[in-house]
């Protein structure tokens, strides 16, 4: 059968002054009907640009300058904008990473799905309504009559992505472009969405161009794989071939960097003293007041965790599990409702802010997004020495230590005079780690600290966390949603669901033999289980 999509020697130029002349260079791939082709690469690889070029949705400054794109045999490059508009939504459709922001918050789900039908067909209102209900049913959303009238914020993340898919498939397009459609979703939801996409393409014969950075997802869903690096295709082939026998060194490196789901062997720390201790930690959010109905959310209930000197304890769970709430309570960025939090036996759970000051030095935190956790108007040195100077060190002492810590996180000392925007994401996260180490903390909290990083960078930062934990005998509290990351770095893990700890223990034991149903479900949902294991079967 003829291909749905053929991209042939496509070249897309970047505006002058960018870090390279072409976003995409000489790229060729194709998608057959009913086939799922995954385009894989790290950030900046051009994988999304090539997809947006197909849709004709590039920003004005970025232009396709060579090659050809054929949709069902029809050449798209050079086609007038009116033709593009006819094809978008009818013959080719697209779904995006963040279903919350990709849906208009002030329009109902029904209105947004119906809009495609309004634009492209002559259907009357009742025909359109019937079609909307039908597509909502096809993506397995419960109670279509209610979903039609719901606004995006009233649905869960998974339901929103299902609604997006319903809208995209309303007119049975030949090609569906999915741009990281499961990256923002929880792992169990991700598994359901992947299954849905696979089912729908089988039933409708839709060709799917699936953009992702996640080799687990590739292993789960792809027929064929296209690997991109810096705008060029370095390797493509059948999924099984590429995953098991990668030819290009870059592909080998990428697959090698995926953390294994098999926990690393780690020395026992049973004899070490307990540094961080929480007992029956509880955090309740309540809203409403005098006149309104009171709403109470128990974000953390009865969380009791111990971390020994030199030990890494991971809290794993999905969004809303309360893992970040616990981290924020431990750092006293928010006030716990009740319970104990102690470092070296000194309970600071209830201390008022002015008495808390001395404790703040002992617990430091590294956040998820290194782009937003450094003040863009301060140099690295300013950001780093602030805490030390605040705790009484002289500026010279602090600068000396900042220099030493930069060595430790493998950044040149000249970095001190630079601003955050001059660094890459991985480098910024190293700066954040160095900054957290400045006041010589005993407890380091990493809140999803590697989640925003590319897989190859992620591996390096994980290694760095392990190095500093060992060097300073830190108690490391590692919050993550990613079981692979947890497997590699945690001595023990705590599994949380809806604010409660459902299971905790030594990482290897829990991975080998999970007890709680929720833990089992998490493991079952992890995509591409054998990827990254050292012995590929």
């Amino acid at each position, binding site marked *: 059968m003829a291909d749905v999509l053929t991209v042939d020697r496509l070249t897309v130029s970047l505006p002058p002054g960018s870090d390279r002349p072409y976003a995409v260079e000489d790229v060729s791939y194709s998608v057959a009907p009913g086939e799922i082709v995954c385009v894989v690469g790290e950030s900046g690889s051009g994988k999304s640009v090539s997809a947006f070029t197909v*849709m004709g*949705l590039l920003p004005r400054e970025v232009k396709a300058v060579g090659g050809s794109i054929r949709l069902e045999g029809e050449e798209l490059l050079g086609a007038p904008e009116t033709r593009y*508009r*006819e*094809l*978008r*939504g*009818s013959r080719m*459709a*697209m779904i*995006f990473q*963040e279903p919350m*922001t*990709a*849906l*208009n*918050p*002030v*329009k109902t789900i029904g209105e947004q799905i119906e*809009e*495609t039908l309004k*634009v*492209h067909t002559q259907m009357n209102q009742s025909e359109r309504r019937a079609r909307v209900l039908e597509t909502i049913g096809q993506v397995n959303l419960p109670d279509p009559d209610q979903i039609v009238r719901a*606004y995006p*914020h009233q649905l869960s993340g998974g339901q929103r992505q299902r609604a*997006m898919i319903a*809208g995209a498939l309303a007119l049975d397009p030949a090609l569906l472009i999915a741009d990281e459609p499961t990256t923002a979703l929880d792992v169990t939801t991700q598994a359901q969405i992947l299954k849905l996409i696979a089912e729908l393409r089988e039933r409708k014969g839709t060709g799917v161009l699936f953009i992702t950075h996640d080799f687990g997802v590739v292993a789960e869903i792809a027929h064929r794989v296209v690997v991109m690096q810096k705008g060029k295709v370095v390797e493509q082939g059948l999924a099984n071939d590429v995953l098991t026998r990668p030819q290009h060194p870059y592909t080998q490196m990428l697959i090698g960097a995926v953390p294994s789901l098999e926990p690393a062997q780690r020395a026992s720390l049973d004899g070490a003293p307990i540094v961080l201790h929480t007992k029956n930690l509880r955090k309740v959010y309540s809203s409403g007041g005098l*006149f309104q109905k009171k709403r109470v959310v128990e974000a953390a209930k009865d969380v009791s965790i111990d971390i020994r000197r030199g030990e890494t304890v991971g809290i794993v769970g999905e969004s809303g599990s309360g893992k970040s709430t616990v981290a924020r309570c431990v750092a006293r960025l928010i006030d716990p409702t009740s319970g104990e939090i102690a470092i070296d036996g000194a309970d600071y759970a209830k201390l008022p802010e002015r008495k808390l000051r001395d404790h703040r030095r002992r617990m430091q935190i590294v956040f998820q997004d290194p782009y937003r956790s450094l003040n863009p108007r301060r140099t690295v040195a300013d950001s780093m020495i602030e805490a030390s100077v605040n705790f009484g060190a002289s500026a010279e002492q602090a600068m000396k230590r900042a220099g030493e810590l930069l060595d430790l996180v493998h950044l040149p000392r000249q970095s001190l005079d630079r601003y955050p925007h001059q660094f890459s994401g991985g480098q910024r996260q190293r700066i954040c780690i160095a900054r957290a180490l400045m006041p010589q903390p005993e407890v380091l909290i990493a809140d999803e600290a590697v989640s925003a990083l590319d897989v190859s960078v992620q591996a390096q930062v994980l290694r760095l966390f392990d190095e500093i934990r060992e060097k300073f005998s830190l108690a490391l509290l590692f919050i993550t949603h990613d079981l692979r990351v947890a497997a590699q770095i945690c001595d023990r893990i705590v599994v949380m669901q809806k604010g409660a700890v459902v299971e905790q223990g030594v990482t290897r034991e829990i991975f080998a033999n999970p007890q709680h149903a929720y833990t089992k479900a998490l493991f079952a949902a992890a995509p591409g289980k054998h990827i990254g294991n050292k012995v590929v079967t």
Partner: protein
Amino acid sequence: MFGYVLRRLVSTIPVMLIVAVFVFLMLRVGPHDPAAIIAGDNANADQIAQIRQQLGLDKPLLTQLFVWLSAILHGDFGESFFFKKKVVSLIADRIEPTLALAICTSILAVVIAVPLGVVAAMRRGSMVDRLVMGFSVLGFSVPVFVIGYVLIYIFAIKFPILPVQGYSRIADGFEPFIRSIILPSLTLAVVYVALIARMTRTSVLEVLGEDYIRTAYARGLTPLQVLVRHALPNAAVPIVTVIGLGVALLIGGVVVTESVFAIPGIGRLTVDAVLARDFPTIQAIILLFSFIYVMINLIIDVSYTLLDPRIRY
């Protein structure tokens, strides 16, 4: 929702009470003696004291306050010292020109400013954008009375197509009314056009960068459809906020504009009352203005729920 509006209406009472007490005390504490002004330059101390007694200004402050507040509760805002008329009827006589001016100005400002802001946002960095932004700076910086006199010079003197000054009541015919209100409204509108156009531009620009705009394009919509169906409804909340604030702040501009165009409205009345130290009239006008202000804020807050389904009270 109904409960929310009810609670907001009830909470107006203490707000108004605080305003009333505050205004009352401010006027009494100041170095103004209405009796001396009414008595004229040649009056002696006895005559002034007699007038003070007639006006009730010789009584203790708290007694005066209590008398005034209890009269208000019975719907009586007192008698003007200066005009010798009931304050309520005084304001009723003057309210039409001011309301007409405020409404025309608001409509004019919104009708001009929102499209300007939208076009500037859609054509960011273009000539149109720079013109709109340049006009906006000008509109902010030139005082209302200067704009007024410039417009009078152009449209009433150089090209005499509109009346120079004065106001024609709606009851006396719609056309003369419109002709008399155009220049004052335009004058007063300039600063709001500047404000609202800027806000609209910023708000629309922000929304145009959102993911759901990309989704809308991916559905095959034209740029105009994307703007009308997706961008504007989302950009509306900040725009409505600034329009509401603008309408509330119009009151200040009304005073100047009515003076420039000799319109017998509340603005003129305010100036006259202040110059004559006419306490009852000043008090009533300020109460009226603050009531309007509170109500406009309530309307803005309620309108949010219509514009954005995520906002619920």
